[in-house]
């Protein structure tokens, strides 16, 4: 049978090597915060003619902003009439812009060349973070309490097996691994491709958290069942459980992978970063349920940390894995 447990320190090393660059990027660059969190500017632009379709007009306005160096602008339209003349007001949310900056001038010229000389910027206002963005910070508290509750539930659900508390703790560690992977990746992608962390990002992280725990529990359930049935060595029981659930883990990952890849390739521009984060998070979640969570049970069972320092038997430093 495939022996996945024997190489556990290799799997931990892969996890750590994935997390460390993201953490460094977090420390150096932080996250690229979107308008939801950081606030920004709110533009009101008067456009005289409405010959174009709505989508076309919105895309054109966004394009003018992008060409002027303001990425990620979001446009909404409203129609009105003065003196029997129709006009459109475009509301644009973007990052903060100084009133005499080059970007603002570029937007002004870009707009007039595209929509005619009567186009003018009515106002540029400063907006605070949206209430949504502000209150989402509180979600971290909610996630923390949810983690405690899950630990408690797993403790109760595994009470028939020896050391039930370990299952809850290891599931939460695997979950933290996925959160770190996702946030680190978001930071790297922030300066690499301009990925923004907005309210949607938080939703994606919450999804990753639920899926990660879900995946881990399926593996743990097999461990529980096999521990009851066999008197084998714990390490072998865990390995057998992982191998037995491997098909299911991969198949479930496949189905999510299909839908997410379809969304990534064919879905709208606006949810692309949301989908990308989800995809990374789910891959990480599947990895951690197979290669981290159950393997940590073995490390705990053998109390292997006594060999980590001093004897130098294992070369890999399992700093965060424990």
């Amino acid at each position, binding site marked *: 049978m495939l022996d996945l447990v024997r190489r556990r320190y290799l799997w931990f090393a892969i996890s750590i090597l994935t997390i460390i660059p993201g953490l460094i990027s977090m420390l150096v660059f932080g996250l690229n915060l979107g308008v939801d969190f950081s606030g920004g500017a709110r533009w009101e632009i008067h456009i005289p003619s409405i010959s174009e379709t709505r989508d076309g007009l919105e895309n054109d306005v966004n394009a003018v902003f992008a060409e002027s160096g303001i990425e990620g602008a979001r446009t909404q339209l*409203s129609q009105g009439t003065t003196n029997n003349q129709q006009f459109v007001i475009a509301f644009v949310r973007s990052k903060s812009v100084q009133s005499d900056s080059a970007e603002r001038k570029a937007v002004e010229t870009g707009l007039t060349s595209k929509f005619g000389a009567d186009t003018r910027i009515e106002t540029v206002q400063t*907006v605070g973070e949206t209430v949504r963005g502000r*209150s989402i910070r509180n979600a971290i508290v909610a996630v923390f309490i*949810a983690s405690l509750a899950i630990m408690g539930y797993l403790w109760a659900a595994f009470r028939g097996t020896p050391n039930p508390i370990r299952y809850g703790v290891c599931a939460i560690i695997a979950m933290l691994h996925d959160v770190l992977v996702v946030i680190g990746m978001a930071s790297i992608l922030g300066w690499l491709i301009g990925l923004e962390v907005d309210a949607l990002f938080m939703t994606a992280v919450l999804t990753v958290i639920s899926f990660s725990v*879900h995946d881990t529990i399926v593996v743990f359930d097999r461990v529980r069942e096999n521990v009851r049935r066999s008197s084998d060595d714990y390490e072998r029981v865990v390995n057998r459980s992982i191998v037995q659930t491997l098909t299911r883990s991969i198949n479930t990952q496949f189905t999510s992978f299909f*839908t997410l890849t379809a969304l990534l390739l064919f*879905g709208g521009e606006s949810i692309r970063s949301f989908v990308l984060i989800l995809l990374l998070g789910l891959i990480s979640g599947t990895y951690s349920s197979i290669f981290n969570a159950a393997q940590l049970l073995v490390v705990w069972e053998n109390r292997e940390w006594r060999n980590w320092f001093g004897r130098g038997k294992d070369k890999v430093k399992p700093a965060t894995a424990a």
Partner: protein
Amino acid sequence: MRKQVISALVVTIVAVALATWIVFFPKSFQSLTGRDVSTHLGLDLQGGSQIFLRPADPNEADLAAKLENAAGVIERRVNGLGVSESVVQVVNSDSIVVELPGVKDPAAASEALKGAGNLEFIDPQGQYLPDGTEVCTTATPRYPITVQLPSSVTGTTGVTTTDSLSNTNPLSSTNNLTTTTPTTTTERPCESPYTTIARGSDLDTSQVALTTDQAGRPAVFFRFQTNSDSATQIASFTSQNIGRPMSIVVDNRVISSPQINGSLPGEGIITMGSTGTTVAEQNSQAQALQNQLKYGALPVTLIEDSNRSISATLGNDSIDASKIAGAIGLIAVMLFMLMYYRLPGLLADIALIVYTILSFAIYNLVPVTLTLPGIAGFILSIGLAVDANVLIFARIKEELHRGRSLERAVEDGFNHAWPSIRDSNASTLITSFILYVLGNGLGVSIIQGFALTLALGIIVSLFTAITVSRMLLRLTIDLGVSNPRWFGVNPEEDAAEVAALSSEQA
């Protein structure tokens, strides 16, 4: 055919029929049951109203902090159910912009939003004050602020613009919205205020709920916090004044003046008596009052500055693209299930279609406001629904490999897969429950919406996996399908594997 199979079949058919009715014929469902089950789309998908609110008194002390608080209260009022997608934002630290998806009556919406929601019970000195009477009280010694809005101009496609843009004078480029809107504010001195008995600030907000009175009219239930000043004062006032009236006042306007029939133990209901003419109006008034009482009073009086309709935050192209992507993803999943699991895969695909239609019906029934991330989340939740089936089929295959009969393998497969399905889904349900409850307490409405969709997804997927898939599997066996090949298992080839497995198990 077994009894359980028949009852599960009946339940499934009824559920699917109901769901089909709701999803495809919402109009006929509404006319029969009176419940609006049309799909609710978020601001990102369908556009809506944009309402600018500004403080009545721009020189108020600590304005910036009060506006921040007010924005929080408004956000909670907007998302009474915690499932809609709106934007509430403080602009230039002196006004608030609110964007609401698909609001048909922006004027009424803005009325509900800017109402301070300041509830009082007053001693009307034995008079039955008519509904709508403006009063000043000892707790809020002023009359309601009357505001004259600029005349409204109707735009093209039925769009109402009541903002400064309809003025003919040219606009300067700085912050004209607050300066060019002509509004007049009238203030009357408060000479002989009514005595306030109880105040809304003492309400137990978790208890405020919609209800109906004995006559079936819409009403709002309230309860004061035990031992609060309001609770003791209202109890002693009502016990001393039986047979006399008491007036209920919101924002210095009388809502109703009921007769006291007995001592109030600190709770009761406010009936939307004659203030609305139709039931629908009374209903929406009760809803607005409930929102205002539940989510607290605004720390600052707001007036409407402008109100107009705006387009969706996302273009139509991205909506269409996501629909296509969703369909492609769904088809890919179904093909994969079919090829890997054969006959059970086909049954799981049927269960998946049942899952999709049931979910959409429930979204419309609750209602859950669908946004693009919501739809993406739904497509993803298909993964959850498939997962339970994958777990079960993997077990069935295992049992077949061990040489069990098909019937035995199906039952054992379900039984063995159940603990893992139970525990993994229970933990996700716990997560969503905590996110929902804390989301409510912390005012994180987007988290609540997510938690609600997730929990609904799990419950429906458990139903489809446990009830529907199992019923379909038993049904096919009862109908005489018995060759394990249909389940992707080849008995001869597997002989060796079986031997290996059993030696391992020993």
